[in-house]
């Protein structure tokens, strides 16, 4: 099972690892600044916890790289069933946080199954689609949807974890197109999508919780009530904008520590970074993410088999969607959806599963020449 040899070390994807680690370290520094106390009292331990999770993630990453990713394909079904069970367990024992059931406690640990599940889901979907002969017809499409997508989507929406739910659908569509659809199916898919959009929108709207509705309203008109529903959005824009070109300087940001910006070390961590490092720093950070994404897409191109290709694409797409939606939300380009920024937002489960995902990407790239094993 373990295959560590010279070739593995020679082909190891140091670029992806370096960029990932850079972003994660920037994340810890930013968490440190965002959660610093105003009085001389003790500093909250968020940055330390995140550091521990990062080390844990790094170890897991090397572990993942050490064996051929093809094993993931073989255990995909097992992972998937376990993942679904975890999501269900959230209902039974999950503790309530932020008006939604997302966490599961095991002893002193509490983790978010949905964060782990999204990765399992990508593996399962890639595995399933790699077995279907492209281009996909309508039947294959529906079969895939009801076998893999439908159940977790409902479970996630019910949590409710709207963000992950949307990503599940987005990843499904991305991988379908990546695998290749029959032209008529693709056209039909797009037409059905366009027609059903208003209906979906309607069902979607009624299915939303009040705080989700008000976030949408706030996105459309943030000035309606600046201290109420538009508050997140306005404060986020103020935080980013006040950084100006060179930023206020590290540990000099005020919006987070003064508690004007909510979720400062989780969903809105980019705003805190942009406040302290300005346009200049933000540009560099965005370029780091861009390198990561483009490198991931290059891995897709170089992967040795269909499963690897689909898996690399799924993971890269997932990172990009998270990154784009989170930053877009922080910059006021999108409604406030509770989606963390990969590698930077505080959150152990997310960091760990993202490190595993990077491990898989590196694995795929590193083993691109091992065509026959």
């Amino acid at each position: 099972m373990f295959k560590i040899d010279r070739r593995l070390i020679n082909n190891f994807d140091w670029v992806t690892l370096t960029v990932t680690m850079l972003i994660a370290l920037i994340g810890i520094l930013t968490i440190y600044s965002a959660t610093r106390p105003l009085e001389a009292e003790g500093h909250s331990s968020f940055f330390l916890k995140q550091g521990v999770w990062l080390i844990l993630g790094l170890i897991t990453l090397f572990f993942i790289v050490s064996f051929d990713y093809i094993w993931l394909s073989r255990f995909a079904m097992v992972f998937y069933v376990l993942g679904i069970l975890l999501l269900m367990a959230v209902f039974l024992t999950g503790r309530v946080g932020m008006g939604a059931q997302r966490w599961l406690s095991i002893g002193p640990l509490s983790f978010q199954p949905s964060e782990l599940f999204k990765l399992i889901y990508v593996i399962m979907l890639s595995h399933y689609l790699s077995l279907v002969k492209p281009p996909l017809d309508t039947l294959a499409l529906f079969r895939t949807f009801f076998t893999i997508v439908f159940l977790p989507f409902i479970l996630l929406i019910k949590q409710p974890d709207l963000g992950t739910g949307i990503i599940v659908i987005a990843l499904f569509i991305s991988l379908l197109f990546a695998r290749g659809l029959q032209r008529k199916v693709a056209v039909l898919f797009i037409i059905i999508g366009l027609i059903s959009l208003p209906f979906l929108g309607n069902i979607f709207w009624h299915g939303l919780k009040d705080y989700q509705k008000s976030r949408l309203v706030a996105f459309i008109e943030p000035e309606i009530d600046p201290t109420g529903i538009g508050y997140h959005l306005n404060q986020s824009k103020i935080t980013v904008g006040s950084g100006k070109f060179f930023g206020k300087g590290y540990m000099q940001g005020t919006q987070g520590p003064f508690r004007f910006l909510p979720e400062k070390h989780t969903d809105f961590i980019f705003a805190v970074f942009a406040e302290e490092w300005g346009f200049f720093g933000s540009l560099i950070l965005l370029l780091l993410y861009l390198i990561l994404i483009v490198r991931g897409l290059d891995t897709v191109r170089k992967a040795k088999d269909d499963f690897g290709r689909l898996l690399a694409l799924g993971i890269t797409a997932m990172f990009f969607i998270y990154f784009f939606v989170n930053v877009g939300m922080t910059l006021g380009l999108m409604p406030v959806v509770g989606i963390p920024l990969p590698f930077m937002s505080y959150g152990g489960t997310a960091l760990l599963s993202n490190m595993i995902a990077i491990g898989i990407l590196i694995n795929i790239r590193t083993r691109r020449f091992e065509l026959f094993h």
Partner: protein
Amino acid sequence: MQREDTSERILIVSYLVIVLVFLLILRLWQLQVLQGDEYRRLSEANRMRIIETPAPRGIIFDRNGIPLVKNSPYYSVSLIPNEFDRNRLQQLSTLLNMPAAEISEIVRESGSSPFVPVRLKHGLLFEEVAYIEARRSDFPGLFVDIEVNREYIYGNVASHLIGYLGKLSPAQAKDPAFRDLSPDTFIGQWGVEKLFDPVLRGTPGKRVIEVNALGKEIRFLQEKPPIKGTDITLSIEINLQQEAEKAFGERAGALVALKPDTGEILGLISKPSFDPNLFTRGITQENWQEIINDKKNPMLNRALQSQYPPGSTFKIVTAIAGLEQKVITPETKVACRGGIQYGSWRFGCWRRQGHGVVSLHKAIVESCDVFFYEVGKRLGIDKISEYAINLGLGTKTGIELGPENHGLIPTSQWKLQTMKLPWYLGETFIAAIGQGYIAATPIQMALMMNTVANGGNIYKPILIKDSPPVLTGRSKASTESIEIVKKGLFGVVNEAGGTGWAAKASFPVGGKTGTAQVVSMKSGVSSQAERFRDHAWFLAFAPVEKPEIALAVLVEHGGHGGGAAAPIAKIAIEEYMKSLQPLDRSGETSSIIDNGHPSVHWKYPDNGNRNEPEPPGEAVRETRGE
């Protein structure tokens, strides 16, 4: 999925990703570079709180340096709803001694952000504050504010003159003159407080602090101390004011007292009055309703705004006009048989049995109507009006205290223009005794008395002690004529048969009674319903030789001037003269005032053979005058 195919599609997707990231970069550029300054300002505004420290308002003193107002500490309790534990509502209710429902209601009605403090209770006593402070740690979000309250030490006394403070009205908030003031500022809304508001107000200071999103103070940044407003010393004498107001009792009316040689206002009363303390922290609906629904209208400044026929006090004008126009001399005699017949009309004298043969002096002293009918007939309305206007009637006095009425001095031309009717001689008769169309405000009558008292200088009534007098005119009446009339006025108070005996004091007072008819009914008929009863006037000045005070008193529905108004005038004059005593003990007027040995043998200075005045004690039992 072929390799070449994949490469091509991946390339397209890569470009798409680059474009999307470029979009984010554009947005960043917009927020941080293009709009960066604005957002930087907003983030500063987030954490900086500029707290205005109100400037202590200037103190208002009376002419002897007695403070009329003070700035006293004032406690209020506020709550930040967000920080408050709602389960403790019942305990809070007990602590503040107010119903829990009321607390909830106040918080709900405030409606603003839950981070903004809501004032629950104000006007607390120090003991209550101490009690709350001791238990405050149990109630997060609760705190006590100390503010400065304007306290009007004398309450209702001189309220129309001093005025009161109030919050900026919505109209004022838009006025550029108040642009620099915060909307919660209390400014002078009435009286002297309003007139001298820019002087009294001072400049508020600023405290800049750093706060977090919960409004909690993190750091103190800078402070600019407030600059106290300038104190002002009014020309009024508070004892005069207070004692005279007391003398009015429940009756409505007005008093204006002036300093003859400067026009300074020594006292200004409009009754009923109001308590300005009710206004200083925002008047309650209940109190306000009570004031505006009061039929006697306490918010009306009668001294400046109400106009009444001057009645017999106008005979001063008629007498001067007659002397100046030489239609009469002091020796002119007219026989009064209780009235005169003119055509089918009879014009009665207030004394039905008549005064017999009267000279000008006796006519003034006893207020003989028939004598003045004759003077009026000889003068004609236009000559009477000419002198009335010349003495300052029919025009505003120019006092800067607020809206003022100009009264009315009719002329034949005026009647022709407004009523399209010619002037009748009968109207001249009643004009000569101050009835009919003639109307004047108490301050106009006081100013006329003042002008006569000082020998003909018309001053603008001023409110600040020792500010330069403003001479607005000079009567064309000769000193001789004025002196003759003043002798008569001395007689009114001091001679047998004088109608103003009730104003007699231990120093020489001159005055004139007057009765303004409310309805055209025979004056002198008593036992009428109060609202039909005549208004009582009394004009006075003292000491006659070198006047220190000139005043007009009006008592609405008071009946006779001598009975209702003169005693008030006497009290005002005595109080003022008393206040001069210690200051003037070595001065030239010291001989006049000697309360220790009240001299009752006052004679008009240049006249030794007038009727001896009765001792005041007996005068009280004498037949009522007018």
